[in-house]
């Protein structure tokens, strides 16, 4: 007890040089305590001491990375109670999700929060990627040892992990929606030449989607993929700091020249060896000038907390109104008509439908072109883009610079094509994947045969 009370008290130390440290203090009682609070502050190690005002602007980054991270946090938090309620067995999975949905208090809300934040994360990651692309933020500026192109590569990897994380969660309710989306998705994997069927067998643990598949997807979903994403996230954030913050800062550095500023009363310039005399003339670029920077704590910490809380609030409120779908239990004998992939893969489903090539007696499966070659090429292109981009350093950290106009147009066209195909897959495909305009009624076709 004595040692415990010492944690919480600020009594005088019993030995010289030994001072008590309090476990937690909202109101520091001395300068030393406030100093300790600062040096042991996690946010201060995460963020730099000073950040430029420009890089904090809402209209520059829209704080999309923070939104994504907040959504990841929400999926983890809402996933924890679901871990205790869900049973990963083919006999009981569906029933346990049904219980979560209809029996357990707040179960429906928790599941909706989990689902919406997972879907929101896919959207936020893509928007964040688009923002980084449009501002050329994967380009290096003037800082030393900048490796922004590698942080972009990490980001692309995180996008893929996010998609796979969402896809593995899709199977867990073990309903018709889940079963057939995963049937189609894993059959795309088997379209890879030579190793495809073996890859599919390793992924689903057999030749058909069964208990082995469910437990594999479950463990990937709750252990390996979140772990991988957390590790990548930590590295991503560390690189942002090593690269000198957002690319916006580099833009300020390039465009603004050093100008005289009044000496800061809190700095001992002489001691730091940057100037001589007692009243030195100090010049500074924007990154260190007092009028263009703010302290990361509290200014930036406060803003990121606003974004995080706002995201949590939005998801929590949406989850009250948007119910999560739960169809009939998975039935390997009945394929729903139409059978659709998760919305973020619908553009690929649309592509695999349209890309089977017949050349005389020779046929290339659309699953190979649309499911393997095309997405593979897009991911490869996305990954190596920073090395293809030869625009000047001035184009770093600004929206739509003239020197990057062509590549921005290419990016917009590709994104628009993906969005269009997604919309066609969502709203314009009816039974037997026939094309229907959104206002056309689907024919009445018996759901079973």
């Amino acid at each position, binding site marked *: 007890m004595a040692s415990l009370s010492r944690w919480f008290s600020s009594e005088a130390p019993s030995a010289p040089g030994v001072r008590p440290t309090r476990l937690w203090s909202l109101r520091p009682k001395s300068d030393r305590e406030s100093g300790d609070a600062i040096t042991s502050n996690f946010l201060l190690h995460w963020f730099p001491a000073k950040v430029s005002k420009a890089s904090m602007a809402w209209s520059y980054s829209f704080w999309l990375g923070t939104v994504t991270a907040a959504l990841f946090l929400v999926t983890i938090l809402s996933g924890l109670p679901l871990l205790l309620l869900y049973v990963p067995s083919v006999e009981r999975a569906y029933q346990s999700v049904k219980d979560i949905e209809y029996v357990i208090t707040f179960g429906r809300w928790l599941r909706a929060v989990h689902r919406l934040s997972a879907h929101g994360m896919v959207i936020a990651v893509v928007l964040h990627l688009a923002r980084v692309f449009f501002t050329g933020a994967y380009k290096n500026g003037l800082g030393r040892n900048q490796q922004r192109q590698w942080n972009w590569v990490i980001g692309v990897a995180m996008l893929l992990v996010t998609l796979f994380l969402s896809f593995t969660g899709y199977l867990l309710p073990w309903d018709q929606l889940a079963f057939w989306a995963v049937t189609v998705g894993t059959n795309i994997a088997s379209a890879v030449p030579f190793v495809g069927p073996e890859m599919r067998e390793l992924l689903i*643990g057999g030749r058909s989607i*069964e208990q082995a598949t469910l437990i594999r997807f479950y463990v990937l979903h709750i252990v390996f993929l979140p772990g991988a994403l957390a590790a990548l996230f930590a590295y991503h954030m560390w690189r942002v700091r090593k690269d000198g913050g957002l690319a916006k800062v580099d833009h300020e550095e390039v465009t603004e020249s050093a100008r005289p500023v009044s000496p800061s009363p809190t700095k001992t310039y002489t001691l730091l060896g940057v100037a001589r005399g007692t009243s030195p003339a100090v010049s500074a670029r924007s990154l260190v000038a007092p009028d263009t920077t703010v302290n990361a704590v509290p200014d930036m910490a406060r803003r990121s907390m606003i974004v995080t809380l706002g995201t949590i609030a939005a998801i929590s409120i949406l989850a009250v109104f948007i119910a999560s779908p739960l169809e009939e239990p998975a039935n390997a004998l009945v*394929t729903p*008509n*139409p*059978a659709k992939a998760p919305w973020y893969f619908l553009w690929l489903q649309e592509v*695999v439908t349209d890309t*089977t090539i017949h050349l005389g007696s020779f046929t290339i*499966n659309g699953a190979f072109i649309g499911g393997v070659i095309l997405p593979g090429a897009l991911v490869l292109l996305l990954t190596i883009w920073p090395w293809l981009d030869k625009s000047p350093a001035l184009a770093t950290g600004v929206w739509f610079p003239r020197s990057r106009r062509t590549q921005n147009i290419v990016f917009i066209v590709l994104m628009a094509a993906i969005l269009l195909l997604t919309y066609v897959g969502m709203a314009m495909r009816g039974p037997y994947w026939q094309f229907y305009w959104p206002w056309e009624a689907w024919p009445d076709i018996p759901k079973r045969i």
Partner: protein
Amino acid sequence: MSDQKPPANRRDFLVKLGTGAGVVALATQGAASLRALVPNVSYDAPTTVKLGPPADYPDGLKFLADERLFVFRDGNTFHAVSATCTHLGCTVRAEALSRPETKTVDGQPLKLTHRFSCPCHGSKYDGDGTNVAGPAPKPLAWFRLSVSPDDGQLVVDLADPVDRTFRLTI
């Protein structure tokens, strides 16, 4: 003589030995873990399945959901066509033709009573399983039918695809 490497001492050797042992241990554990994920015993459904006595089959088509199989009967001849779409593995649906037609398939006449459509990506097949539209890359498989010697039931071997001249005559 200065460019000669200094003789390896015991510490260097032990560091290398330890690092090597660590790498080997991790690689072995990793390989063993991955190998454990490849099943040695398949609990998938058996591929040879009894389908009931031939008398249970009407003229025309009968769909067997468990086997994902269409069994066709024309008088005393039978053949079986897979219901698994060759594109991405969804179960195709049969639609009855308004008028049966006869088509020559691989030199043999075949009465077609149905055609097939896939609900996932809209592939279409003729009644003999030929892919005619949509993304399906090849025709639906035909499987070997036989009669069980012990109780006279129809038997399908889902691991034994046959060509489209196959008929089981009883």
